[in-house]
């Protein structure tokens, strides 16, 4: 586990052009960024491509990172904007694929496959901002304040997105049960 001091030291070295320091930051934060983008993009392969693009962009723009949030939050924000723009320009929404959920067994995931599939489908139906807020706060463990920084939205908007998104997911899950 990387401490705040370790991260600050690696960031300072990476800002001076040390590629090895940056690769350690990628290594330490790749799971969080890839996890968030998998939930947001809904497509495993796309999400990993987007996560790579996010880290490459972060490397190129590292001098602009002011350190007001964690590096993980900042890269998630970079990834979110790349994913959102890519969805708008390429209509990636139509190419969702949830087959990867079947690779996990129920015990490992902590929830039955039917529920995970139903929630993934319901997530896909949420508007981008709402889906991102729900994914960050209810799935990936970010605080509302961190999500607000990542999504570049006011705190109140993020809280409202999370509440409304959760309500919509719940309704969709219940309506699946009734079928």
């Amino acid at each position: 586990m990387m401490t705040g001091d370790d991260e600050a030291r690696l960031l300072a070295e990476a800002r001076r052009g040390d590629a090895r320091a940056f690769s350690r930051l990628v290594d330490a934060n790749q799971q969080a960024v890839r996890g968030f983008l998998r939930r947001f993009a809904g497509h495993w392969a796309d999400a990993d491509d987007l996560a790579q693009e996010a880290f490459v962009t972060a490397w190129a723009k590292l001098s602009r990172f002011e350190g007001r949030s964690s590096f993980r939050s900042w890269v998630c924000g970079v990834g979110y904007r790349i994913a959102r723009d890519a969805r708008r320009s390429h209509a990636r929404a139509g190419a969702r694929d949830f087959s990867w959920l079947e690779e996990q067994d129920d015990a490992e995931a902590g929830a039955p496959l039917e529920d995970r599939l139903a929630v993934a489908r319901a997530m896909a139906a949420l508007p981008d901002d709402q889906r991102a807020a729900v994914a960050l706060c209810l799935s990936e463990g970010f605080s509302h304040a961190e999500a607000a920084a990542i999504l570049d939205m006011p705190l109140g908007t993020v809280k409202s997105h999370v509440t409304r998104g959760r309500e919509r997911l719940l309704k969709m899950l219940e309506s699946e049960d009734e079928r």
Partner: protein
Amino acid sequence: MSAEDRLSRALAAPVAPAKDMHFTLQVMRQAEAARFKAETGRRLLRGAALAALAVAALLPLGGWAAENADAALDLGLAVGGVVAVLSVLRGLRRGAPARAR
């Protein structure tokens, strides 16, 4: 189990992949390619700007040289001499650390 509980569990189900060294390597490869591309672009722009400046400086010189051929020859020889001396000095400076080792 209530729908609320099921939703919470499904949302909390981990989707993050295991740490993957290939992912990091791929990122660093792409980052290096992007850096090389940007550096090449910057060099090309700098070269084009220098070439444009040189052409802009040489155009009026061309007119003057046509009218003063002897003076232009003297100037050309002087500039050539200075460039040659500078090249020799630079070569000596580069060779000095190698000899010192």
